[in-house]
């Protein structure tokens, strides 16, 4: 197949792998990668449940604006609410989801 836009994915060099925790799941990430991005790659799309939801609607929320504006990817680290898209992955980081029931 002819490609005018070449696939350059193999030419990208990334930092070493680290592992962080998202609730009870171990998530691999490249050091310094936004936590939200590593979660997306790991297939963890549902990052939190919204506190206010219209009747019948799903509360599941995930990464949306990727730039720290929408706050949809908010997670908890050390008791503080932070945007997962602006939080850098480091080894052993403990990230908790917000509002997700058991």
């Amino acid at each position: 197949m002819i490609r005018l836009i070449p696939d350059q994915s193999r030419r990208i060099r990334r930092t070493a792998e680290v592992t962080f925790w998202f609730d009870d799941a171990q998530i691999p990430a490249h050091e310094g990668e936004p936590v939200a991005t590593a979660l997306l790659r790991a297939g963890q799309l549902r990052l939190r449940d919204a506190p206010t939801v219209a009747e019948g609607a799903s509360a599941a929320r995930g990464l949306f604006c990727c730039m720290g504006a929408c706050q949809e990817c908010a997670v908890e680290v050390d008791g503080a609410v932070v945007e997962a898209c602006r939080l850098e992955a480091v080894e052993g980081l403990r990230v908790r989801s917000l509002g997700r029931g058991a």
Partner: protein
Amino acid sequence: MTGDLDTDVAVLGAGPAGGNAALGAARAGLRVALVDEQQDAGGQVWRAKGKAIRAAPETPESRAGSQLRALIAASAVDHLADTRLWQIERHGPAWRLGLLQGGEPVQLTARALVVASGAREFVQPVPGWTTPGVLGLAGATALLKRDMVVPGAATIVAGTGPLVFFTAAEIRRLGGHVQAIVTPNTRADWMRALPAMLVRPDLLARGARWMADLALSGVPIHWGHALSRVIGEDRVVGAEVHPLDSDWRPAGPVREIAADSLCLGNGLVPSIEAAQLAGCPIRHDPALGGWVPDADDEGKTPVDGLFVCGDGAGIRGAAAAAYQGSLAGQGVARFLGAQVPGIGPRHLRRYRRAAAFGRAMTALSAPRPGLSSLIDDATVLCRCEGVTSGALRQAIAAGATSANATKSGLRCGMGPCGGAYCQTAVTRQIAVSTGRSEGEVPPPTARPPLRPVPLGGLAGDIAYEDLPIPKPAPL
């Protein structure tokens, strides 16, 4: 407060516009503080690669960003990175800005202010758009540029204007699979934009290459279609797609496309809250993306010592923003009695050429009225507060016929995003329901804090003995 800074010119936003405004003012010999939320300058469009990327092929955007960052690093500009603006106040002739630098409160005093706050995306709300796996189109570009990660294994790229084609091309460049492109624009819309695009043959050629690549690789492009519903409960499994009439109202049979990820966006809207908070009058100009601050080519506003430039002054695109930034740098320098060397009439001509291209793209990207009929009563408009279109309709019928009224009545726009992702849809629904034009329904009054700020951050370190607590009244 932990820190006080003083400067001649404060520039808000380090994208193409703010970066060049800061460089210009510094070349005029002025002290410049460049305030930006990100670690690196470049804004959304010339975004730097993230820390997890050690090496990667360059793109026109990454090169332009690297060049801007190198110029800023070599200049006398004081770049306040990782710094959020939450308050703008006037103290006599000076501006006083409330900042949070890496979480610490800082007060910055400046003689003049350049607002280069850029744009945010308008994502047309559709049923299911809050489902995890749906990314904003501009948001997806951040993921692609910063993290060089694709949104999923099979991605539908949906929306208006050139950004769908850029995003699809970037997904393919990074090894991803574009399941389909869904765009309300038709081929005829693009042909009509062609004459205006000829002023920038370089940009036109790049766009043509994206489209040719998609055609050759067999990616389906659904011209004249809209993504009308997201399928999936806790994650995206697909989407419904509708053909549109010329007003962009759904017309004709629906079809389903399977996908694990969606990018959805319908043009950019100027971020005007900082300019509003600085007291700048605004006007409605659909050709520039909606409500824009009143300003001339040099970004001079009716407010003394306040300049605006870049997409925050009206959506004209990155190329125009860079030139307009330099013009605003010259404007602010003149205001303070200085002069930027090397900015002349040729510069203004280049700005106007780039702006003509950008305006043609804005016109392609602007949603037509019928698109909002994709919303049903159960569709969430305000994601933060979970307000549905039906609830908004009831509130409007009960008399909440302004953005301020729906904000205080329903909390639309009171959530952590500050209304960034609902305001356009809300004011549009108010306009439609009350039989007014969008230009007759202004956005809500901008109020501090402009960005979410932890309360501890505002207060600084509190010593309880310093608090002025009145003595209890004698009984």
